[in-house]
């Protein structure tokens, strides 16, 4: 850890802000609802989960790709009087970065408590693959030299990074298939996951090829849903319902040195974590070895692998072993995406993975374990199918958000106290 980032560590906002509320809609294919109606539902659930009233929320941040309503009507529907709001463009890696933006807005005195949400009809509305209607849009700008060659979908955009990783480090399809296997096990213990069936490595590598080397089961779901989190200061967090998930450190949207067309520069088999990790771990005051549970974004199986590797959870080039040796499964040293993630639970552009880690740090994951007299889950730590998915005594989590190999965000959260 040698990169000088030019900021006094004492100036960080480490553990001064927290996520106090989380909420979501059902993960579906065919919501029958507008993105506005789903956002209202998810934000409502998050505010109620926090134990807050709408009058205690005065900030809103939302992100989208021209596929969702803006935050102002959502705030209006909920009777929220905004002192601050912003709608930005983005998909994966937006939520972690916006958590940092929310902290900055509160720190600047612009507002006191911020809801961040993403609402998308990612299956029944505008689909992520940029097929259909979107494919017919004019070719211009930086698409001039890309789309004319059929380079369009997320799978095509990222597959070439994995192809080169296989070449540079000997990583195999079977190794990254283990990510889908692990996440399917986790999803089988998550009643709200859309895909709860456990799969094998053979199921993944024998599924049809979509864009080599990515098979169908290497790719995440497309679903309709809204998801939300509530960010406030640690002082206000004390009045909320749950143990707060303190924000230890955040980076984002960090980039590779060149973002005009990353495949044209630098090592293709390295993702942005390589450039962002010093800042992240220095901000959080911990290292990857201290982390109990991760949420490495699984748009594809290999994105989980590549990010864990580049943020330093294993040595460069050893990500294939790391994700296939049991480490990332429940019961392993450091489970990843215990909800089942985008590969199995539902596709929400990252908020769901933050929600899951907040629940992990509360020690109150919503699995099928019995509820005790205190209203909290009595976790069995029996991870067999249909069982528990709580990580024992989880204290620290990391989310690694992927906007591409060249752009991303990361978040370290710590279990707080009431």
């Amino acid at each position, binding site marked *: 850890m040698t990169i000088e980032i030019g900021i006094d560590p004492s100036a960080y906002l480490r553990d001064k802000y927290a996520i106090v509320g989380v909420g979501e809609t059902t993960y579906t294919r065919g919501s029958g609802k507008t993105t506005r109606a789903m956002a209202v539902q998810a934000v409502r659930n998050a505010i109620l989960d926090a134990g807050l009233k709408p009058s205690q929320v005065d900030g809103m941040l939302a992100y989208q790709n021209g596929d969702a309503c803006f935050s102002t009507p959502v705030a209006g529907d909920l009777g929220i009087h905004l002192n601050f709001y912003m709608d930005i463009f983005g998909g994966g890696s937006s939520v972690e970065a916006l958590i940092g933006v929310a902290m900055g807005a509160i720190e600047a005195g612009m507002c006191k408590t911020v809801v961040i949400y993403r609402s998308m009809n990612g299956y029944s509305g505008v689909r992520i693959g940029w097929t259909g209607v979107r*494919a017919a849009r*004019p070719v211009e700008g930086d698409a001039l030299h890309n789309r004319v060659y*059929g380079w369009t979908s997320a799978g095509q955009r990222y597959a070439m990074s994995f192809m080169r990783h296989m070449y540079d480090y000997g990583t195999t399809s079977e190794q990254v298939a283990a990510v889908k296997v692990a996440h399917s096990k986790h999803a089988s213990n998550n009643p709200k996951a859309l895909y709860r069936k456990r799969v094998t490595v053979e199921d993944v590598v024998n599924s049809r090829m979509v864009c080599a080397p990515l098979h169908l089961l290497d790719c995440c779901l497309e679903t309709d849903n809204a998801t939300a989190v509530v960010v406030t200061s640690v002082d206000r967090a004390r009045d909320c319902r749950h143990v707060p998930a303190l924000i230890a450190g955040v980076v984002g949207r960090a980039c590779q040195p060149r973002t005009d067309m990353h495949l*044209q520069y630098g090592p*293709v088999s390295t993702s942005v974590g390589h450039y962002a990790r010093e800042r992240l771990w220095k901000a959080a005051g911990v290292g990857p070895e201290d982390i109990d549970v991760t949420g490495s974004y699984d748009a594809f199986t290999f994105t989980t692998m590549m990010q864990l590797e580049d943020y330093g959870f294993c040595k460069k080039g050893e990500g294939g072993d790391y994700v296939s040796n049991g480490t990332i499964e429940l019961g392993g040293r450091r489970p990843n995406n215990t909800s089942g993630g985008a590969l199995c639970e539902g596709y929400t552009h990252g908020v769901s993975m933050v929600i899951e880690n907040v629940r992990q740090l509360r020690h109150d994951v919503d699995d099928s374990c019995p509820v005790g007299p205190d209203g909290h889950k009595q976790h069995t730590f029996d991870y067999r199918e249909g069982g528990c998915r709580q990580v024992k005594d989880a204290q620290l989590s990391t989310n690694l958000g992927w906007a591409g190999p060249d752009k991303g965000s990361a978040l370290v959260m710590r279990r707080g106290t009431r």
Partner: protein
Amino acid sequence: MADTPHKPVPRPYQDTQAYWDAAREKRLILQRCRDCQKFQFFPRGVCSHCLGSALEWVDSPGRGVVHTFTIAHRAPHPGFANQVPFVIGIIELEEGVRMMTNIVGCDPNSVRIDMPVKVTFEEATPDITLPQFTPA
């Protein structure tokens, strides 16, 4: 509308007109900065290495190697429907720049990283010809 939709084609503009004009003549040209002598792809108004604006066009022999690639098994646009599976690749040219292309004229499953390739040209429409690459 045509019976068979053609692939999406570029709409040349100020910075790229010369590139597409050359492609129609079956020539691959690259931009080089007169100040720092570095190449850049794709064409733009400013050198992204040194911010110089004295950019010149240089003919390229169009030789390079496959840096990475994917084989697309689904058509992202109806214009690609009769081509699947097709290869999308990044070529590292001898000049040092990398460019996106399709790798054509071979079995997609025979494409390998570091495989030598050379430029070829595909007349996408009467106005637009696309530089493509094929095994050397």
